[in-house]
């Protein structure tokens, strides 16, 4: 059913989309890698550097106060976005990867020991695999992996059987970057909590598409990247329950994260500053705040159903192409159309689509275990955002026809 959402109006807010690439109008379908930035975000970063650039939290002068207000104002916007209880539960990071590493370091190292178990799934991004492998290696802990079925859904019975008193942490992607599957996160969290294990959700691919309420979910940690949410690169958020964050040692030492320093003893700062050593990415945080404003002005309730409609349209259109197979066919998906074509390598698909002005990602998507599970070397991946249209999908289909023509 048409949702009446005006994607063209949204599209007009993104200057990068108004261009030709290789002589063709740009069709940007690589939003899973990074999203484009609306003029409002670009303007806000320019405004900050043009009128108020100063360091935060330490100056008595006017610009420092303004910069601090805007930097902390952006934190409040992020707290509201996730419906966290308190601003101090919002830790600025460089992105999802840093958020996961911070939890592995500051929660994992003190709490996980020999023989303990960490549960992840078969459809994690490498950033939600490698930090846990490193931790397990250091501590003699065991990494357990929830298998997935042929549609790209978790085998929840296997997950249930894995949970036991040695389970010390469950770290799962909210939405799979390679397959688009939306995980049953409420159930995952409830089951983990029944065994006393906290849960980290990797929301990198979820936040651009789905409203997230960390208190309703009752998740213990939630991480995402600003640049996939129409914000600047090098920004991100780690949400953690205050009582967990409070008990965790800092990851980096330096300025900002201390209350007092003598050579005998240093007293760490309060949350969230304990985890934000050094001068932060101030412009990035303020730009991310503008991105949150933008997303909320468009509204998840408005673009969510529209994106679902677009995904359904794209799924039908691609499925009708002979020799094409969609990888990730769960009915609970968002934003991602991963596919392979018989006898044509994804990189060749990517190059030929690029010549048509169509940007998709090709490769293993930093999720090699997913590729191994489906016994394929790589996929081509079209990933959607709120500014994509049916015309983009139609262009993709014509592009794929051209790929097949070149190889016939």
């Amino acid at each position: 059913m048409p949702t009446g959402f005006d994607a063209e109006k949204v599209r007009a807010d993104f200057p990068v989309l108004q261009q030709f690439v290789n002589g063709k109008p740009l069709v940007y379908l690589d939003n899973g890698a990074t999203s484009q930035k609306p003029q409002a975000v670009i303007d806000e970063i320019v405004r900050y550097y043009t009128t108020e650039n100063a360091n935060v939290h330490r100056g008595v002068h006017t610009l420092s106060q303004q910069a601090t207000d805007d930097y902390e104002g952006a934190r409040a916007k992020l707290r509201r976005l996730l419906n966290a209880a308190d601003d101090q539960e919002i830790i600025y990071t460089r992105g999802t990867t840093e958020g996961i590493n911070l939890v592995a370091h500051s929660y994992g190292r003190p709490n996980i020991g020999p023989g303990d178990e960490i549960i992840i799934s078969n459809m994690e991004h490498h950033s939600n695999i490698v930090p846990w492998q490193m931790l397990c290696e250091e501590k003699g802990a065991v990494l357990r992996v929830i298998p997935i079925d042929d549609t790209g859904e978790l085998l929840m019975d296997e997950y249930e059987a894995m949970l036991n008193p040695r389970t010390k942490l469950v770290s799962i992607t909210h939405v799979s970057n390679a397959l688009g599957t939306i995980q049953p996160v409420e159930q995952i969290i409830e089951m983990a909590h029944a065994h006393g294990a906290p849960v980290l959700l990797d929301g990198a691919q979820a936040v651009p598409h789905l409203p997230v309420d960390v208190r309703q979910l009752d998740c213990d940690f939630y991480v995402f990247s600003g640049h996939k949410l129409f914000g600047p690169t090098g920004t991100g958020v780690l949400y953690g329950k205050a009582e967990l964050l409070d008990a965790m040692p800092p990851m980096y030492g330096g300025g900002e994260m201390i209350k007092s320093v003598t050579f005998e003893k240093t007293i760490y700062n309060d949350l969230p500053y304990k985890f934000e050593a050094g001068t932060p990415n101030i412009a990035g945080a303020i730009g991310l705040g503008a991105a949150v404003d933008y997303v909320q002005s468009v509204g998840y309730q408005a673009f969510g159903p529209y994106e679902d409609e677009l995904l359904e349209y794209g799924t039908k259109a691609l499925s009708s192409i002979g020799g094409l197979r969609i990888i990730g066919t769960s009915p609970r998906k968002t934003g991602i159309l991963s596919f392979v074509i018989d006898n044509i390598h994804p990189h060749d698909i990517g190059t030929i689509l690029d010549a048509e002005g169509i940007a998709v990602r090709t490769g293993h998507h930093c999720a090699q275990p997913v590729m191994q599970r489906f016994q394929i070397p790589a996929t081509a991946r079209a990933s959607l955002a709120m500014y994509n249209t049916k015309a983009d999908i139609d262009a993709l289909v014509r592009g794929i026809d051209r790929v097949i023509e070149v190889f016939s």
Partner: protein
Amino acid sequence: MPGLSDLYQEILLEHNSKPRNFRRVENPSRTAEGYNPLCGDQITVYLKMSGDIIDDVAFQGVGCAISRASASMMTQSIKGKKLSEANQIFDAFHLMVTDPISEPDYDTLGDLETLSGINEYPTRIKCAILAWHTLRSALNDQGKKVTTE
């Protein structure tokens, strides 16, 4: 950007669909494995040497049309050649795909010249060159063996 037809020429597509010497070599003198971690392409190159002559060369692996065709054409071009000649072909090929300004050494390259369009596609040069670096590794290790003996 040049037309796609400069890249995906008929001869390349033909080598992709029917790669030559796409097999193992029984009792190879040397093998080397190549891997492109960025895209997951993998290749194994097998060499059978008779003195400094490449008696047989073959490859196996997974990759895109460009890497497969490049490997296939590579095996054709070096089979029966001397080590020194194979190294010369490597140098000519490497220069052709990485340096768009230089004039390709057509005499040495032969059919390989059809891959010259790749230098307009910087993201794909690694695809074309993976098999060649793998060959080089096999050849060089053979060289080391010869010197240590």
